[in-house]
């Protein structure tokens, strides 16, 4: 009986691998759909009360409903911010605290600019990365010290299975390759072949 135990163990692990894949696919993934590629390393944009910081951006992912950014309000309990896609000025006003803040954003997928308005009564800092003035965000027509970093988020977190096409396509996009999810599909094939190959070889090697 124990002669067959190694193969029973391998079969059990093959089932476990399958279960792990299924459990991962039905898990809710992140709400994050992308970023503007700017790390919120330091406060580089100061927005005085009543003013608006704007910067250029590539169109955000289609599902974007809000942005998350790191802000500094110096403990001001009445700090308020609003985000818009550079055209409207009627975004929802959100109470701001020091740290990460989510701001609703409409029409982001068509936007070429992103603006954050300080609706409070004291200055607010936006975190990002320092850049030369010609690439920096603009506050009241003056260049700031850099551009602010934003993370684009969707309304709710879908499961990984629901996002599979999008995630696979991103494997190609990350390398500056368009053309759909072929790269990601190839990745899945390699993963399947690796695991199946290893388990099959072990099955044949650890024979009774």
């Amino acid at each position, binding site marked *: 009986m124990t002669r067959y135990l190694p193969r029973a163990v391998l079969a059990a692990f093959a089932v476990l691998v399958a279960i792990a894949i299924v459990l991962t696919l039905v898990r809710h993934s992140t709400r994050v759909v992308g970023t503007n590629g700017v790390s919120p390393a330091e406060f580089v944009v100061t927005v005085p009360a009543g003013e608006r910081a704007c910067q250029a951006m590539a*169109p955000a992912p289609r599902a974007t409903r809000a942005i*998350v950014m790191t802000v500094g309000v110096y403990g001001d309990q009445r700090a308020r911010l609003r985000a818009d896609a550079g055209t409207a000025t009627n975004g929802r006003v959100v109470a701001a605290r020091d740290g990460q803040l989510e701001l609703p954003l409409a029409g982001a997928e068509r936007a070429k600019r992103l603006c954050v308005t300080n609706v409070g009564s004291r200055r607010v800092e936006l975190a990002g990365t320092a850049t030369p003035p010609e690439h920096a965000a603009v506050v009241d027509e003056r260049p700031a010290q850099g551009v602010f970093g934003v993370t684009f988020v969707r309304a709710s977190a879908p499961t990984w299975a629901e996002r599979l096409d999008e995630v696979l396509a991103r494997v190609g996009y990350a390398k500056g390759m368009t053309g759909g999810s072929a790269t990601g599909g190839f990745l899945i094939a390699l993963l399947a072949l690796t695991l199946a190959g290893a388990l099959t070889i072990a099955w044949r090697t650890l024979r009774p």
Partner: protein
Amino acid sequence: MSGPPPPADLVPHDAGADRDQASDAASEDRRSATRRLVLAVATVALLHGLLWTILIPPFQAPDETEHFAYAQYLAETARLPPKVGNPQYSSEEIAAFNALGTVGITGAYGVKPPATEASADAAEAAVEVAEELPRDDGGGPSTASAQPPLAYALWAIPYRVGADGSILTRLWLMRLLSLACFVATAVGAALLARELLPSWRWAGMVGGLLVALQPAVAFIAVSINPDTLLFAVSTWALLVAVRSVRHGLTRRRALALGVLAGAGMVTKLTFAGLVPGLLLALVFGLRRARTDRVRLGATAIGAAAVLPVVYLAWALLQGRGLLPVAAGTPVLPVEQQATGSLTGLISYAWQLYLPRLPFMHDFFGFFPPYTTWIGGFVGRLGWLDYGLRGWIYDAAAVILAGALVLVLVALSRAQRLRRNWRVLAVFALCALGLAAQIAWVGYDYRNKTGFVFEQTRYLYPMIGVYATGMVTACAALGRRGGPVLAAAFIGVACLHTLAAVFATVARYYG
């Protein structure tokens, strides 16, 4: 005219011919088994490594930016960096960083590579523009520029092959060469495990698969990093060393050991840690040699000297030192740097690998054997900016500790210890040399920068010993239990791979 064959017992019996035939058949069986072993392990390593070459976004492995810059400068100018006065990176590489958002992604989990078709189009266009920029104006001092050039010289080949393509095409072609090193490492580990446990039919296959499936090794080994060649060269050097110790030095083994040691010396300075152990293996091998020992010793030493001498000549002709000044690491002002001492170094080295003793100054504030070594072995990926779920590290620590106990049990059998003491001495000296060298560099780095230097990959030159150790742990359970544990190890390795791939997908594409 032919009749029926005579009865067998009437045929004159040639015992020598029978023995020869049996011996020929046995060696053909061995060769065939070796072919199967190499093919199987290489296939899994190839598939797994290829996966990681695609999964990791460009420049998102530790120091890949600097190592690419070194290789690019060498490929473009046939000169060794550093070129003082030049920046680290070429104009083309900097433009590629900007196109892909490389600097912003590094170290910031929430920042992702281009994630939409529009941003991918923009990145592609920017990379195309970058192709027109100078490629040979980098090569300034960096964290990589002090390293010897063998790996970079090899990467220059795929770089030149892809010279007409974009920088991303060249990077991927270079990663394919790294992939070949990863495959060689896994195969070397398989052969080492089989060499040391010949009576266990599955030893080589299980040892090889455990390396081929190790995601933290695969991740770093397929990136542009001289570590990958170091892993391959070290694993094969250990294999030849073990064969020399067990069967005696032959001309081929002396040549192979020498060439591998020489290649290691001009691949990465870390290899120096293995040299005392390899020298001990040479001495043991010479003692068991049947032919001219002086000539064999001279062959090994001479072969080991060839590549370092070529490097020396190249560096001297260029007016570059063998250990040029590195840069790129933020060093504290001199008055803030800690002063080193021998007792400090000993205490640091102790705490790096063992529990801190009560009277020792706490250098780390955490437990390096778990956080640094086990944590890194399980997976600290990207620019060390993401990993796996917390419980996986704890589970891995339990499994590795259990395996270590089983190895000790296996070795505690006096007969086994007596039979293998030379090999164990070589392994121990290699491990000690490597550990001491890592501690030496880490102590100096910490004093000058205030940061912790050590990463698990610095121990991967001994990955073949890990494979052998895991198989030895299985063997400790005997003929019935051993294969069961081996199957469990392979199963866990598959789950480990899956977890690392999912974590990477979530990090960069989620």
